[in-house]
């Protein structure tokens, strides 16, 4: 119709903003991304914690690179820490001591870096547990679950390479264990170890190599994966807990701008503040206590950081011999005797291997068993998926048993029990714990579902005790608030799907296995209350919202 009038901002800020906007199209991004809706729940924020601690790691780590010398050259320490002055050590360890004692703010930054590292892996783990127990990994988010799992492994790798860098006695012992594990791999183990350390352990190359991995390669891959992870979150939209008005096709919550931009921005500084407070008050990895690395001494209480603890624990749990059966096999080959150290190879690789395999495959295992190929944007309350909750708890228990085993010596000294007994009990728990965990967790989930059913059908207990004219006492039950009722009745009712014949009428072996698993998972179930069920019950009792249990006349006449 007519030429559009050019927008002319009035203030100088407006002019600058307009200039930039016309060139980069910022308002379009804000318009699109700022209106993105995210649901609000405390359990959705662990991923954010992981992201923020990662940013904190990048900031504090950059500071540390200015002063750290990743070299295994031999130097004599002449810094401020008296109990180590005049001692020969690697340049890496000496520069770590200098960061701790002679660089202004260095010790604080080291502690920020290390505390945020262990908080980072903890946040990643809790975030994954939340995703698992609420079923957020289901279609279409399976690939993002896998990316998350890769991030967990990368976080562990970043942590372990960093833990080893100071070249102190504690981390050196950790590296020695890794060397032992690598060497236990059949045929190629010794070669891998020689390549890794550039010769026999410890050599003079491992610290610079770990440094490249730690400050460049691993964080770069983490950043890439984080990018993919967040991009997929935006594409898939965030999941939400079931509730009134929340469907599989919408997201109920607040927009990014201004609500989440402010909340998340503020939360970043809260996390930063918490880590800074912890770092200022509590020491972490006091490397000066451990002394420089020397292959001969091993200190009592040598443990890896918590995220590697489960591997250390598995190694501690593994018996070297079982009665007369030795796990160390000496196999005579034509070219000589080769040793297969199953007592190292099995605990170091098998539990972690099983754990990560099941973890990565779980979305497909679940959709295969349930034959559920639909998209899911509504989460399960953990009680409403008893089979999954049971499986998750079994995994957590088996992880925690290995974790506890890594601190078996500290359990022994602090609870005044025998170290040997701790190991024996943990071995028993390693076998029985996951089974018990599965059974107990599933039972608890089913019982909670029954309780929900009971509440829906009979109303909630009000705590009001009434005496009827006949003298009988009963508690008044009140009807549920419809909003709360929604959460209790609106869940997915998974039933056993027996093995189905295929088009040719044949039931394949894998289909039979699926049927058996389906039976195992869903045989015991608690169906949600249907509206007709509720209506029928109301009609039968024939009274209004304030039902009085046990006071109906019929029950007295009987």
């Amino acid at each position, binding site marked *: 119709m007519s030429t559009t009038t050019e927008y002319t901002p009035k203030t100088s800020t407006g002019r600058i903003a307009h200039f930039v906007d016309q060139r980069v199209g910022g308002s379009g991004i804000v318009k699109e991304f700022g209106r993105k809706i995210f649901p*609000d*729940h*405390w359990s*959705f*924020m*662990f991923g954010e*914690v992981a992201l923020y601690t990662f940013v904190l790691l990048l900031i504090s780590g950059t500071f540390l690179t200015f002063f750290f010398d990743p070299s295994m050259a031999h130097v004599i320490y002449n810094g401020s820490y*008296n*109990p*180590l002055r*005049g*001692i020969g050590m690697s340049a890496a360890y000496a520069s770590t001591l200098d960061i*701790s004692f002679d660089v202004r703010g260095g*010790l604080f930054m080291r*502690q920020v870096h290390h*505390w945020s590292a*262990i*908080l980072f892996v*903890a*946040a990643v783990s*809790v975030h994954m547990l939340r995703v698992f127990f609420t079923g957020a990994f289901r279609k279409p988010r399976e690939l993002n679950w896998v990316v998350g799992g890769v991030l967990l492994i990368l976080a562990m790798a970043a942590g372990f390479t960093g833990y080893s860098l100071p070249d102190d*006695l*504690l981390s050196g012992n950790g590296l020695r264990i890794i060397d032992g594990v690598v060497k236990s791999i059949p045929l190629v183990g010794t070669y891998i170890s020689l390549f890794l350390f550039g010769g026999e352990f410890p050599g003079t190359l491992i610290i610079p190599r770990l440094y490249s991995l730690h400050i460049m390669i691993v964080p770069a891959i983490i950043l890439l994966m984080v990018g993919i992870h967040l991009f997929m979150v935006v594409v898939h939209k965030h999941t939400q807990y079931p509730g009134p008005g929340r469907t599989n096709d919408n997201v109920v919550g607040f927009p990014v701008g201004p609500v989440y931009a402010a909340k998340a921005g*503020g*939360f970043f500084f*809260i*996390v930063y503040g*918490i880590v800074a407070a*912890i770092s*200022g*008050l*509590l*020491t*972490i*990895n*006091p490397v000066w*206590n*451990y*002394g420089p690395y020397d292959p*001969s*001494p*091993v*200190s*009592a*209480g040598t*443990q*890896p*950081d*918590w995220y590697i*603890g489960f591997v250390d624990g598995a190694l501690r749990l593994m018996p070297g011999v079982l009665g007369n059966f030795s796990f160390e096999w000496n196999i005579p080959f034509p070219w000589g005797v080769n040793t297969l150290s199953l007592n190292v190879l099995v605990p170091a690789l098998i539990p972690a291997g099983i754990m990560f395999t099941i973890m990565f495959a779980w979305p497909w295992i679940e959709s295969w068993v349930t034959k559920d190929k639909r998209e899911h944007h509504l989460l399960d309350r953990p009680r409403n998926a008893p089979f999954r909750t049971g499986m998750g708890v079994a995994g957590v228990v088996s992880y925690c048993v290995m974790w506890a085993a*890594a601190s078996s*010596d*500290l359990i*022994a*000294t602090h609870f*005044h*029990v*025998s*170290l*040997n007994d701790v190991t024996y009990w943990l071995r028993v728990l390693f076998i029985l714990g996951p089974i018990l965990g599965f059974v107990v967790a599933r039972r608890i989930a089913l019982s909670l579902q029954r309780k929900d059913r009971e509440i829906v059908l009979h109303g909630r207990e009000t705590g009001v005790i009434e005496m009827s004219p006949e003298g009988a006492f009963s508690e008044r039950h009140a009807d549920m608030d419809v909003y709360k009722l929604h959460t209790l009745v609106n869940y997915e009712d998974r039933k056993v799907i027996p093995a189905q014949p295929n088009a040719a009428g044949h039931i394949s072996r894998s289909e039979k296995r699926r049927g058996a698993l389906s039976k195992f998972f869903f045989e015991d179930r608690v169906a949600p209350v249907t509206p007709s069920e509720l209506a029928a019950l109301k009609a039968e009792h024939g009274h209004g919202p304030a039902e009085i249990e046990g006071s109906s006349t019929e029950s007295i006449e009987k």
Partner: protein
Amino acid sequence: MKALSQRRRHPLAAVALLLMGLLITGGLYMAAGSVNEAKAATGYSASDIEEGNKLFIANCATCHGLNAEGSADGPSLIGVGAAAVDFQVGTGRMPMQMQGPQAQAKPVQFDDAQISQLSAFVASLGAGPAIPSEDMLDTSHGDSAAGGTVFRVNCAMCHNAAAAGGALTRGKFAPALAGVSEKHIYEAMITGPQNMPVFNDSNITPDEKRDVITFLKEIESQGSPGGAKLGSLGPVAEGLFIWTAGLGIIIAFTIWLTSRPS
């Protein structure tokens, strides 16, 4: 000399020669082996030994025997020396509260004079390590860095690099070393109480022992440069803290951030 040469073909000459040879080698071995084991009962009066004997009969003889010869319940104390008594009684480990994997420290039962009398009595039974003198314990002449190296090589595998203690097999343990007096640390090294090995003076010289004590006292008195040390227990304590307190605080904030005004 003539008498000796006349009897050189005596039937017992060979036996006498053998005996002499054994005594000389044995004596040399004893002298070489007990370089550190300072001489017995020096500086103790007869009345100290007498009083110590009475205390011993009343408090120790049940397990160690009336003449300290040992029994099924306790080892012989002949030749353990004053240092062993001073350590065991002076740290309250003896008299033992109960039989167990190892004697545990508890409030000391005797005063210094009584401990000295008991030491005098046991030292009078046979030569053993003596209580170290003041200058052997003078940390102002020690080198904490050298002591730290000796400590990490010889002691840290049981007592932990920061001397926070550690577990041994079947309920035995190496205790934390903070708060243990210089004298008791030295005595422990030369007598090897409970499950600890003896570090004699040819293994760790008296000067090195003093360095170790200097190191231990320095790390104890300097405190923790980085803040609360969480028991110096290493990554387990750190992981436990982040999973309980750390995540607890984070969760409290997430709940606060997602709560709605009601």
